[in-house]
């Protein structure tokens, strides 16, 4: 009986002891090292775009456990490839497309999410290919100004990858009237650029650019004339009589800018006509091949005129002085009592000719106490003026004004 008690006491005693011995922190028993060994092997650390390289994953054993992945990280993002469960050497199935874009590629080998190996692959751009993308602007510049223009080019390889910094681009250009010039520039941040200042002559700056065997489309920058400079106007044709049907023809010399370039076609020129220092007419024309021509109507009275031209910006011409003599030589007046009309004519001009139609005629008939004016226009050399039916009879003084001539006389109206 007692030994049973002892055994039970021992069991009861040892149990808790053993139990408590099992609690607490487990002991740091080191586990065997089972990290798989793997690595990435690159055939080459750099390549040209479009030229794939072989990339391998190497493993110690013939078979592998766990999940092995390869991470391809480039400027376009990340791509994850899961490797098969075979060991040894595995050639990674990287698609050819991946090798077409330039930049640094980060390759990472992972096992169960843990990075095992890292490698880098540099994909460089190929030689320039095809048409070089180009932009030129401003499209126009004014000759002799401080304006500038620029052409930029972006040479690319056959996959659209820009050239690296330092890549040479050759610009060939010619200014109007000058020999072609060559300048080399280097690509910086994808772009090669060249600036142009204005020259002396108007015309087109032609620009070509090339990089290796790739070429840009021809660009043009137009050099336009500067502001017009003072110019000369000449009298081309004049009939110096007060016949408003005739025209004065005035033509300028070739209007140029300060560099001698003809002003652009369509440049508006204003011609001002002054009489007694007052402006009485303004005519407008525009240049064609640098020359402007205008047709100004003669006055309908004797006058001394000054004509000058101006372009906006106070660019003036010389002044032409003109004088106009009397046009009408004879203009008899008669009264027709049956129809109660005044007939002026035949009105003749300075060559003895019948004046043309539409010449204004003014007739004033007056008594000491009253006067009345009638106006009309010639038709086939005559002008008919209707008198009111109740026009009083009497001996009137008359004056006729037409074509710069004034005639007076007496008229009996019955």
């Amino acid at each position, binding site marked *: 009986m007692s030994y049973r008690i002892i055994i039970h006491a021992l069991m009861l005693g040892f149990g808790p002891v053993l139990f408590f011995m099992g609690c607490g922190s487990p002991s740091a028993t080191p586990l065997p090292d089972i990290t798989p060994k793997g690595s990435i092997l690159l055939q080459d650390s750099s390549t040209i775009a479009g030229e794939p390289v072989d990339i391998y994953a190497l493993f110690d054993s013939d078979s592998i456990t766990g999940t092995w992945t390869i991470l391809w990280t480039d400027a376009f993002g990340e791509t994850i490839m899961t490797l098969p469960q075979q060991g040894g050497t595995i050639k990674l199935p990287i698609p050819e497309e991946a090798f077409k874009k330039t930049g640094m590629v980060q390759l990472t080998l992972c096992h169960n999410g843990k990075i095992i190996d890292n490698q880098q692959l540099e994909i460089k751009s190929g030689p320039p290919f095809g048409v070089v993308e180009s*932009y*030129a*602007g401003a*499209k*126009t510049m*004014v000759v*002799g*100004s*401080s*304006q500038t223009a620029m052409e930029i080019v972006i040479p690319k390889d056959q996959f659209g990858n820009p050239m690296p910094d330092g890549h040479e681009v050759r610009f060939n250009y010619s200014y109007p009237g000058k020999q072609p010039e060559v300048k080399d520039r280097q690509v910086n941040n994808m772009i090669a650029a060249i600036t142009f200042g204005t020259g002396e002559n108007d015309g087109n700056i032609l620009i070509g650019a090339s990089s290796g065997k790739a070429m840009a*489309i021809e*660009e043009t920058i137009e050099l*336009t*004339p500067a*502001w*017009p400079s003072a110019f000369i106007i000449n009298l081309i044709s004049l009939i110096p009589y007060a016949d408003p*049907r*005739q*025209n004065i023809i005035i033509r300028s010399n070739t209007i140029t800018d300060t560099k001698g370039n003809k*002003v*652009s*076609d*369509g*440049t*508006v020129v*204003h*011609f*001002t006509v002054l009489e007694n220092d*007052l*402006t*009485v*007419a*303004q*005519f*407008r*024309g*525009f240049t*064609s*091949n640098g*020359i402007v*021509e*205008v*047709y*100004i*109507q003669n006055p309908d009275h004797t006058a001394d005129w000054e004509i000058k031209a101006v*372009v*906006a*910006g*106070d*660019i003036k011409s010389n002044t032409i002085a003109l004088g106009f003599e009397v046009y009408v030589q004879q203009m008899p007046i008669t009264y027709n009592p049956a129809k*109660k009309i005044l007939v002026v004519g035949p009105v003749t001009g300075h060559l003895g000719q019948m004046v*043309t*139609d*539409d010449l204004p005629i003014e007739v004033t008939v007056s008594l000491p106490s009253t006067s009345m004016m009638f106006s009309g*226009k*010639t*038709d086939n050399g005559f002008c008919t003026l*209707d008198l*009111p*039916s109740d026009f009083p009879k009497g001996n009137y003084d008359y004056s006729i004004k037409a074509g710069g001539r004034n005639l007076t006389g007496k008229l009996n109206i019955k």
Partner: protein
Amino acid sequence: MQQKNNRYFYLALLIGLMLHGATLMFTFEGTYDAFVHLFFANHYSENWFESWNYQWYTGFTVTSYPPLVHQVIALLSKVVGLKAGFLIWSFFIVLVFIRGVYVFSKIWVGERAAAYAAILAVFSTAFGEALHIFGQLPSITGVAFLLNACPELYWWLRKDLRYRLLTGLSLLAMTSTAHHVTTIFGMVFFVLPTLGLAVMNRSAEKKQGEQNVHFKDIFREVFKVLPRVIVFGLTVIFITAFVIFPYWYWSKSDPITQVPIPHGSRDSFLEVTSSGLVFFLIPWGMMLFFLPFLFREIVRKRNIFVGLSISLAFLLGTGGTTPLPRMMLGETAFNILTLDRFTYWASLLSLPFWGAFFYELLEGRYKNFLQDKFGYLFRFVLTGALCFGVLVSALSVINFQNFRATQPDKIDVLPIVNFLERDKHDDWRYLTLGFGDQVAWLSTNTSALSVDGNYHSVRRLPEMTTRAVERLENAKYLGTEGILSLQQFLTSPEKYNLKFIFSNDKFYDPVLFFYGWKKLQQLENNIIIWERNDVPGLASVLPRKNIPDIQRLMWGIIPISVLIIGLLINLWFGLRYYKKQKEDQKVILKYAAQKTHKLFWGTYTIWIIAFAFFIGTGSAYIAYKNYDHTTPTNLIEAYFHRLDFKNFRKAYTYFNPETRPSLEQYLMELSLEGGILSSYAKLDTIDIAFTPGREPEKLTANVTASWLTALSSYQTTHQIELTKKGLFWYIEPFELEKRTPPDKFIRRPSVDFLSHGKRKPIANKVEKRDILDRPDVYIISASLMEKEGDYSVVGQIINTDNDPAFLAVEVAFYDDAGNELARNNVQDLIAHVLYPKETTSFKVDYDPFGHQKIAEADNLDSTVIQPHHFAVFARSLVSGESFYKHTGVQTVRIEGQHTLKGEVVNYGAQQIIVPQLLFSYYDTDHQLLWVEPYYPQGGIRSQRKKPFSIKIPDLNNIKILKNGNDDNLRINGVSRKLYRENQFIPIAPDLYPTAPFQLNDSIMVDINISAQMASQSDE
């Protein structure tokens, strides 16, 4: 007998199909509304459940119009095309309509008279007008179903036949899905009298004859049937609400804000006789002769309800002829509803009695009476004359468009469609001018969007809803308000992404030209395309209003289902109860018992004779009074109206035969005149004052004529000599310009410009190297001015570039706190295209409401917040257009105190069609004070001149509020200062020489000339 009646009915169907079917193929394209319905049908055809349509205005919902007809045409179009689908449905509805008249008439006038009514329905001028002139297919469909519904409801109430209620309700449901207004008003005008008749006949049956029926019997019967009638009414309301629920939802959630648009049906028909013709005489037609018979019949006890209906509809259909319709409907309803529908319904309600009249005339008592009294021949001639009149009036209405065109000539839309679909032109909105209702057909054939449309109830743009303008495209017919409305869109097209205008009317050429639009090309169909530069394209995502999906499903499923189910129900019950219906539904009217009062014939004869006498003598009197040579006033008015309508040969006949030139000489002299008034104006009013001539038989007419052009109103004064020869007056020929140019042959240098645009023909892409830089322009000055309470910004711009520049100028006005009050664009007060080194003045008026000019025209008060600051935004684009510059001004002088006179000279080789003079007034410090335009009346031929005479504005009332500076003047988005620092401008811009003409000690003026040439119009 029954068989004979049926034969007449089938004859009516056959004649109806032959007459309307054959003619509709030629008339429907000239109607007002057919193309609108085709447009809606096309919408459903392309996307059945889509509720939003982008094509008109800035988009609208198609649930704004009951869809049945459109959806049916859409379904038919899948097999036979849209137009054939329209015709097929029309043919079907013609048959339904004739049947409707027949069965409707049977309950009122008996079978035989109903058969005659059916035949007469074929020749009804009201129906012909609605179908062949108005093209109102949905309302015709609605009334056709309604007429068929009425007898169903009659027999339901009369004989307690429940299945007739079902058929009647199904037909009313079809009516609602076709045209809801017909259901709503149809309940009052058609259904209520029908139910009243049913109640009356129930009483009559109980009392064994209607002569024994008194009102108390009717009331007793009414109370008996009232519960079911109430239930019926509520059911109809529910059906009408349910079957087109999305329509009611739209009208509640998006109520119409459109101001009332004038309509001829609201005119007084005595004052506006053309409205009386279209909206009264034509729809009633020959029925006017039988009005005494009608009003005699409808006062009979049994017809009292329909009598009230006809009388009310007759009265409402008279429009503004009496004040009663306005009083009865109220101002709002009167101005919103078109009242021609009431005349239409009145004439349809009268058809049964029209049939009864012919029955009496051909077979009944009148036949016997006339034959006994006057003989067979007289009766035969009289009957023949009436029948002939019915036939001729019907044919005249059907062929109305041959007598009076209601639309412009037919336009081939294909070239326009091709243009819009090419090169991404449909990335912008377009507008049509002078297309009439064919604008809807163009919209049907293209997916491009228009800023205008043909269904004004759905407009939401305030610029349109605040104007009593039906469409922009016929603005010239709408007076000043129409023109102002159009001008607003032409001034600010970028606001609506509006880039292209297709013009079929040269009336609008001047406003398009001077508002900066460029004539692009003329298409093979003679439509001119005008284009505006520098307008941004439509956004890729446009705003739209969505309705709940359940409503879209309802809209797409219920209406067409109602039609199918309704037709099946009627067919089923019709076949099932065919024989029973034939027996039960005979209506025999005992006319024999009706005594004809001896006064009736006398009254009727007097009516016929008086009516004929009135028409005959009235016509003769009116013809005599309106004969053009009868009075001087007639002559002058006729002459100007002939000129207005370009009827020159007729105008020539008004000249004195003894003194006038030959017709050829006259036409040649007219053709030389040209100008905005002779080519682009519509005559508005004429005032004539006469003074005695130099001889007794002579007069001098001092005429002041007001002309409406697309640019502005003109007043012209004319002194015309008149001579009386015998009884008639004649005009003495005028003197025309005699000036003979000095040269037989002219040589003038010119410059051509061309902006290639795309040099490589690549669709849908513009290469950057083809895009030209914006040309350099410079704002010389700009100032905010106040003149008599109105505010404007005046200024000057110069083109400093070497290429021609198109200018768009926008001014923003701000209050004192810097809040923007308005943004307004320059209109015609600028030369929109400047050659190199050319300057122009400009003036932009402050217009915060967008319709200030209209407010002024209507003398409405428009409270204006004063602007204190402003900013000018000038944009330029290289222009490839050549503009005429061979002009000058001479003999400029002041006469009196306020009149500026001078002459415009054209020394070049081309004819100026419409010259514009821009007068810029300066003070002696060269401060620009004011800018005003002037358009001389006539054109200017080569080597000729035109005088001008204008009133100088009162410059003392002009106050300079603020001058612009570098900060608030922007050119192509860049401040003026930056522009100046980078531009090669030789001198300080402030010293540019400006006004050459010194008018007096304090005023100087500059005159700039722009010219629309013959090549820039379609002359």
